[in-house]
Each structure stands twice: as structure tokens, then as C-alpha cells.
């Protein structure tokens, strides 16, 4: 039988990372990172370019596996199960841990087919069920109202902000548990950005979200927890409010107040 305290801590952790170290060839990209990502919260990863935050994000659904020369040590647990363990199906893992990228990348297909793509890959053939999934995902991505009359139109005709929300809908269609977002709003105008941020607030009731952003105000606005990375190390991790009003570490303080040396 499990210790009660341990069980409790696990129930508060969606993704548990222990001593995660990543090398690209000889270059150390992440140095022994340990961090817990709680469920139904937004965790923001901040830090200057090259600090390791995107590498960290991509380790959470094994997107780094295919990088030539990559070495990954340590443990990443999803609901307590190791994702780098033997017999873990990376495709199934990525269904549970979806990803949205900086540049929206819709397929040159219709809006409907973009969202239905994932469920079809995972074997969903029932047209009624597919239609339900597409509608629900578009609604969750706050895009339904704008596209419900033209689901057959090409996704490439949508605006940049709409394309990004379509990509979020596409990620949601396979019913993931975790959503990883790599600078999801950095190419968008302020209105589209505000819509994405509003969406993030809504999505966290259903999903666990980890977001990488260069925009510190965005991290402050959307996240519950903030993690500051520098030179491959996790410098500080805590409630966003605390990080932005009184961080514990001088390095964090200097970065978020704009003292870049």
C-alpha cells in the first residue's frame, strides 16, 4: 500500500519530471531538471533564447526523440507512469499530450478535415462521431461561431489568429489530457493574442497546459505557475503571482524586471 502523503502528492501532479538531463551531441541543453506540473493549471516556461525551455517542453511528449545526437536522461512521468519507459507508444503518448506550435501549420485541407485528421489517424471512422468531435473541438478552441457555416472551406483561407485556433482545435480533437504550447501567440496581433489567452483560461478546466513564451506579460496573464530557465537550468519555479511580485532568486528578479546584464 502506498504512503498517503505520496499518493496525495501524485494526485496533484499530472507530469512529474525528475533529474531530466538532455544533450544535443556534446552540448548540454538541460541540466538535471526536476519539476511537477499540476493538473488543470497553466504552467508557463520563461527564459532567454537557448535557455532550454523549448527543449524541456518537447521532452514532455517525446518530440526530441528524433533529433540526431540527442541524449535524454532522467524521468518524465505522466500520471505516475514513465513516458520514456519500454513499451510506451510515442504516438499514443502524443495523443494524450498534444502540442501547438508558434507558427500555425494547418494542413492544406478543409477546416473539417484538419480537425478530423487526428481522430481518423487514431481509427475513428464513424461520421456522426467525427462530426461531434469536430464541433466540440472547434467550440473548445473558440472558433466554432466563426467557421460553422464554412467547414468545407480551405483552412488556409482563415486569418492567422483563426488558423492558430484551428491548430488548437486539431490538437483537442484527439481528446488529449495535456496541451503543450510553444509560443502560440507570438506571430499574432494583439486581438488574436487576447483571444488565445482567453482560450487558455477556458481550456485549463479540461486540460493541463504547459506554455513556452517570450512575452513575460503573457506568462503573467495566463499562467498559474511560472518556471524560469537559464542556461539549461531551472532557476526558480513557483506561483506566477509570487514570481512576478517577489521572486526568491536574484537571477529571476533580474530577468523579469529586464536587467539582462
Amino acid at each position, binding site marked *: 500500500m502506498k504512503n498517503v502523503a505520496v499518493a496525495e502528492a501524485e494526485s496533484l501532479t499530472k507530469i512529474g519530471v525528475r533529474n531530466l538531463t538532455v544533450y544535443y551531441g556534446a552540448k548540454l541543453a538541460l541540466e538535471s531538471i526536476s519539476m511537477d506540473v499540476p493538473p488543470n493549471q497553466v504552467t508557463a516556461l520563461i527564459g532567454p533564447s537557448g535557455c532550454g525551455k523549448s527543449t524541456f517542453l518537447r521532452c514532455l511528449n517525446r518530440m526530441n526523440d528524433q533529433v540526431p545526437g540527442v541524449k535524454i536522461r532522467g524521468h518524465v512521468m505522466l500520471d505516475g507512469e514513465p513516458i520514456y519507459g519500454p513499451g510506451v507508444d510515442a504516438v499514443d503518448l502524443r495523443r494524450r499530450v498534444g502540442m501547438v506550435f508558434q507558427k500555425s501549420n494547418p494542413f492544406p485541407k478543409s477546416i473539417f478535415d484538419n480537425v478530423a485528421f487526428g481522430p481518423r489517424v487514431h481509427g475513428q471512422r464513424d461520421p456522426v462521431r467525427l462530426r461531434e468531435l469536430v464541433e466540440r473541438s472547434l467550440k473548445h478552441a473558440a472558433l466554432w461561431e466563426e467557421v460553422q457555416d464554412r467547414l468545407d472551406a480551405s483552412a488556409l483561407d482563415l486569418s492567422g489568429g483563426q488558423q492558430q485556433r484551428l491548430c488548437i482545435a486539431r490538437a483537442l480533437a484527439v481528446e488529449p489530457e495535456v496541451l503543450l504550447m510553444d509560443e502560440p501567440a507570438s506571430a499574432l496581433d494583439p486581438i488574436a493574442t487576447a483571444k488565445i489567452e482567453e482560450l487558455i483560461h477556458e481550456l485549463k478546466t479540461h486540460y493541463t497546459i504547459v506554455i513556452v513564451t517570450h512575452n*513575460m*506579460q503573457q506568462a*503573467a496573464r495566463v499562467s498559474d505557475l511560472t518556471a524560469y530557465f537559464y542556461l539549461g537550468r531551472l532557476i526558480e519555479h513557483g506561483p506566477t503571482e509570487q514570481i*512576478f*511580485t*517577489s*521572486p526568491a532568486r*536574484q537571477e*529571476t*528578479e*533580474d530577468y*523579469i*524586471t*529586464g*536587467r*539582462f*546584464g
Partner: protein
Amino acid sequence: MTPLHTDRSYEQQLGHLRTAVLEMGGLVEEQIGQAIKALVERDHALARATIERDHTVNRFDVEIDSLSLKLLALHQPAARDLRLITTALKITTDLERIGDMATHIAERAVELADELPIKPYIDIPRMADLARQMLHRSLDAFVREDTELALSVCASDDAIDHLHEQLFRELVSFMVEDPKTVSRAMRLLFVSKYLERVGDHATNIAEMVIFMVKGRQIRHLDKVPREL
């Protein structure tokens, strides 16, 4: 030592803010001194000049507010910068109130200047010294980011409260003995109360300095912590 801000003009504006708070503090400190001098020396002209100076203090209040708002709106400050700005906003409210207290003391000085003293001024100048010292130390703590000094300011508020109570009892006994002294004693009691309020405002400033440096609120605790 905190490294300088990468954006120099932002760093400069934060510097301006700090300086403006200090200048305003220096001004109200002097105002208290002058008001008490006017009272003790029965100096009409000095009392009037003290009252006049309140406009300058008020201008600082407005200037610091607008500088703070501008910094908040244009730079989205975080952490220590954010705490400095919110502290400046709150400190100036206290400084402005201290300025008002000095003005009130000067007004009472004008009223009392032509009347016979009911007793020599001993306790009131002592209270004024204490109040000014508290203010001075709280501003020093602000510049030097010295939380120990700030804590010592909070701890010294009791002394001034104690003097106020003592003066209260004394003045009440004057009034009981001779009703002709009531209007003068009441005015002195007001002065004592104003000085006691100055001590409270200085304590507020010191508490905000602790927040500014440590990011910790010690306001509205039952007891001043001995250490942080």
C-alpha cells in the same frame, strides 16, 4: 548589488521616482520642524510660511502619482520595480498627510501665538523630535533598503503614543482645574494628536519599505516582528 536595467531610460525614471519621494520626505520633515518652531517661538510669519509650503508638498504628491502611473502603464514593471512603484504611491500618501499635519500644527501655532501659554513647551517639542526622527529613519530605510532600520521605526511608535497619553492626562487636568484654559489646552491636545499621527504615518512608511525590500507585508499584524 542589483545590476542596472537594460533599458536605461526606464532605469533613469525609476531613479527619478526614488529621488522625488526623498525630496518630498525632506520637505515634510522640515515642515514639521518649522511648525513646531513657530509654535514654541510664537512666530506668526513662520507659521504662515509653513502653511504656504503645503502647496509644494501637494505638487510632489501629484507628480509622484503621475510618474508612477506612467511607469506602470508603459513598462509593466515586475518584482522589485513593481514593489518600488507601489511603495512610492503609498509612501507619498503618508507624506502628504504628514504635510497636512504640519499645516494643522502651524494653524494652531497662529491661534496660540497671541495667547498666554498655559505651560512651558517641553513634551511637545520632545514628541516632535521623536516624530521627525521616525520619519527621517523611515526615509533613510527607504533609500538604503534597510529593513532593520525600518523595523526599528515600527518599534519606536510606542514611545510617541506614550508621550501623547501622558500629555492628554496633563492637559485634561489643566482643563478640569481652570475652564479658562480649555481652548488653549484643546489646541495643544490637537497638536499632540497631530504628532502622534505623524508617528503612525512614519510607521506606515517603514512597513512599506519592508514590503519593498522583502516582498513581505507586516502591516496589520498584532505585534511588530522582532526580525524578518
